[in-house]
């Protein structure tokens, strides 16, 4: 492969197809076509976004609510900057607090008085909530994958096991996170009783709720992928007399990997959506709680703050999806194997 072909292949695997025309353009390949291509893949979406912002600004200025006028794009952008600013202001305050504590600690030590460490008790900022949400969704996603992939493999391998699992899958798959959440919270309270818990209870219950709702796409896709391994490939295993375990490890799983990753991608998407709802209902820390708190505030900033959260949720969700597409491309062997 030439270097250009490698760069282009890299772009495609990374899901950055948008830059393929740029690479081609830089290498002097059919400039007019590449510019047109780039215009279509970048120019048109930007234009559409612009139209959306204009319509939003126009409509928003017409609507008066009980807590003031609906904010337009500019107000939301300002609010976004303010929220980030708050975060750094809070961090500075925290640093100053610990600095003061250090000073006090020395003073206490000189005077021979006993000293007890105190933690800064400022409220979590918007960015802190984003971090918490990301950590929670990944925890839930990991739990879901650890459960769903092995069960999916068993379902795909054994029609009997699948028949046993099928009613459970059919019943639990459509259950909303809001229905799981109370059960999970009570169960976590009952079962998770560590003295100095490393994870907060709220974190565990959010993660478990995410896992319960997001494991189904992975489970089902894994089962389908495993069940649809090509007969030719299994014949290879039979001719070689691979053991059952080797057949699964060397033939079945690699062949089902693209399916598994498609499932994982869907699961992460579901998990992210479920998480916001769960946080909101359970008052667990995270973006969902942020939205709820702002709603309860009812200040003139409320709408703008919630809209910032909406965009943040959307952008993070699509970035997570992008990330999974990249992983999916990296493991798929037939679609883009070159």
């Amino acid at each position: 492969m030439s270097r250009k072909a490698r760069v282009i292949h890299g772009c495609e695997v990374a899901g950055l197809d948008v830059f393929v025309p740029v690479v081609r353009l830089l290498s002097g390949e059919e400039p007019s076509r590449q510019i047109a291509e780039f215009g279509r893949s970048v120019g048109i979406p930007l234009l559409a976004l612009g139209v959306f912002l204009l319509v939003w600004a126009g409509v928003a200025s017409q609507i008066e609510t009980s807590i003031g006028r609906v904010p337009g794009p500019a107000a939301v952008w300002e609010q976004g900057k303010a929220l980030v600013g708050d975060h750094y202001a809070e961090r500075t305050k925290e640093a100053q607090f610990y600095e003061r504590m250090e000073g006090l600690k020395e003073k206490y030590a000189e005077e021979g008085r006993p000293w007890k460490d105190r933690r800064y008790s400022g409220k979590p900022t918007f960015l802190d909530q984003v971090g918490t949400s990301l950590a929670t969704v990944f925890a839930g996603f990991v739990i879901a994958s650890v459960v769903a992939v092995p069960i999916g493999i068993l379902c795909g391998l054994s029609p009997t096991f699948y028949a046993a699992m099928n009613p459970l899958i059919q019943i639990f798959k459509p259950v909303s996170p809001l229905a799981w959440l109370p059960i999970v919270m009570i169960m976590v309270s009952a079962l998770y009783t560590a003295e100095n818990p490393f994870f907060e209870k709220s974190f565990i219950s959010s993660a478990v709720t995410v896992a319960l709702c997001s494991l189904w796409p992975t489970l089902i896709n894994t089962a389908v992928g495993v069940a649809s391994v090509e007969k030719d490939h299994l014949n290879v295993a039979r001719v070689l007399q691979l053991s059952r375990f080797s057949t699964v490890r060397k033939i079945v799983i690699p062949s089902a990997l693209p399916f598994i990753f498609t499932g994982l991608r869907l699961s992460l998407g579901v998990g992210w959506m479920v998480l916001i709802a769960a946080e909101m209902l359970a008052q667990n820390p995270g973006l969902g709680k942020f939205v709820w708190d702002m709603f309860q505030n009812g200040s003139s900033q409320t709408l703008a703050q919630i809209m910032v959260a909406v965009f943040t949720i959307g952008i993070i969700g699509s970035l997570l999806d992008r990330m999974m597409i990249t992983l999916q491309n990296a493991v798929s062997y037939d679609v883009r194997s070159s």
Partner: protein
Amino acid sequence: MSLFLDIVQLKKSYPTKDGEAVIVEGFDLKMDAGEFVCLIGHSGCGKSTVLSMLAGLNDITDGNALVGGREVRGAGPDRGVVFQAPCLLPWLSARENVMIGVDQVYAHGTAQERLEIAEYYLARVGLDDAMDKRPAELSLGMQQRVGLARAFALAPRMLLLDEPFGMLDSLTRNELQDVLLELWQRDRKTALMVTHDVDEALFLADRVVMMTNGPRARVGKILDVTLPRPRDRAKIIEYPGYYPLRSVLISFLEEQENARDDTRSKAA
């Protein structure tokens, strides 16, 4: 020459709602060790069914098949199989595709020895420079070369080839026939190959076994290919015996075709 393959009254049938569908019945064949036999017949006559029963990939309904004195029960690496489609694992490189078999058969060897075996056979089929490539990066002909290397690398006691070159264009097919013949001549493995190409059968085989049309297909006629070895593609057609042999095969296939047309017109 010693008897190596002994097929006695082999039968394959499937139950259907209209009763038993008999594909192959009363199929007898004996092969000596080191013999190369081609099985020829019209498409759909059941020749691939016979082969896959010998490979152990398809259950034998009735009758017996002994390979090297052992009854065929299930598949095993003592019979190297080359399928019509290359059947490579698409997520593995050419080398890894051969290694997966070598690792299984030479489990007692060191990793280095196994790697050398795999690379030796890949080199023999002309893939020195393509060992790291995945199937999607290889042409169909090259993929089938990997298939040949994989079968030979197992050091099987017998080779079963199911129309291995059926999907290739004629130039590539010729190349691969040469590769196969060269590999076979080196260690003279007993080989049974299914084909419907008359010239391919004459070029490769010691004997050509002609199958009647199904249902209830069986051995119709056996032709000894008396052409001297080693065979040269350019010269083989100049041997005085070549065209008479070829016309035996052609007329048998035509007879079968006519018989089939007759039964069809009677039915109509």
